[in-house]
């Protein structure tokens, strides 16, 4: 199974041996704990639930998690198996095939070691929120002329439909509105650096979201081929 949870750190450039420059996004990923295995028998689908970011207890020794989350991480099945999980801030699931699930056990840790340089990955993040954005920014509409007698219409959307027939604006017409702050997947990014010592990954290209944003990293869905 190739999946891990991380946070975007930032971007930089690295050099290849022959001097080519590669833009990379640095991600602090893992270590993640397998907190639960979802099976068709119990849950109706197959997946692994990973936990990320250990939370230290409060100064008075109490947990920072709410009781339902605490209960989930310290549930009886785990205790019976002798598995102790730390408090984890983030829990996310990754869908799996049966083969992929076979090698996994609850309580196991997953680190960046799961990935190799050259692997293709898909990265899911939450894009930066743009607020209420106009049609030029949101839908790549063209700007209207600044001159030739125009005034105050440079970034106006223009026509949103015909006249008496149909007498209304069609549903789905692209207009201004909230933009960004939504789940975005970038496919087939190439892993350039794996640094198990610092739990860092670097992938070629950009990754959705702001620095410090949560990202999910999975093996690429649409391409099985590896690139060097």
């Amino acid at each position, binding site marked *: 199974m190739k999946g891990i949870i991380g*946070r975007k*750190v*930032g*971007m*930089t*450039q*690295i*050099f*290849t*041996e*022959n*001097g080519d*420059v590669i833009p*990379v996004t*640095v991600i*602090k990923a893992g270590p993640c704990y397998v907190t639960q295995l979802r099976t068709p028998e119990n849950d109706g689908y197959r997946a692994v639930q990973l936990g990320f970011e250990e939370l230290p207890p409060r100064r008075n020794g109490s947990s920072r998690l709410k009781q339902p989350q605490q209960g989930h991480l310290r549930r009886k099945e785990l205790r019976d198996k002798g598995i102790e999980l730390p408090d984890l801030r983030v829990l996310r699931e990754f869908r799996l095939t049966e083969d992929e699930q076979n090698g996994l056990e609850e309580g196991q840790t997953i680190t960046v070691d799961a990935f190799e340089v050259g692997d293709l990955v898909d990265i899911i993040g939450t894009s930066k929120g743009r607020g209420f954005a106009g049609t030029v920014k949101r839908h790549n509409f063209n700007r209207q002329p600044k001159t030739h007698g125009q005034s105050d219409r440079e970034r106006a959307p223009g026509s949103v439909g015909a006249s008496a027939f149909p007498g209304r604006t069609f549903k789905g017409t692209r207009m201004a509105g909230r933009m960004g702050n939504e789940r975005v997947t970038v496919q087939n990014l190439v892993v350039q*650096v794996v*640094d198990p010592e*610092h739990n*860092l990954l*670097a992938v070629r290209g950009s990754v959705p979201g702001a*620095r*410090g944003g949560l990202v999910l990293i999975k093996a690429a869905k649409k391409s099985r081929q590896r690139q060097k």
Partner: protein
Amino acid sequence: MTDLVKLLEDRTEDRGFPELYPGDEVKVHLRIVEGNRERIQIVPGMVIRLRKGGNNKSFTVRRIASHGIGVERTFLYNSPRIEKIEVLRHSKVRRAQLYYMRDRRGKKARLKEVRTVNRNK
């Protein structure tokens, strides 16, 4: 968080290039690959601009090529394509970007040399 980016950038090996300053006369030894032959090209000139930025540090070298045409070339300081950087002399300059050198020719384009002992240790 950005300290983590630094960790990654620290993997770039320090190849002991001298520290550059604006106004330095330098020779940049550049590795050029032609087909499967490799040769070294030497680019002489004056450093007229430095950009910091960790791994992406760069500098621009200006020289007057044949027919009095000014040629500027920007290099990435950490690029493996740079074999060696020689500093021939330092000049007395009062600003960080020496763009005014672009408007100067001949004798006007001279800068006063600053002689320092072991400025680059």
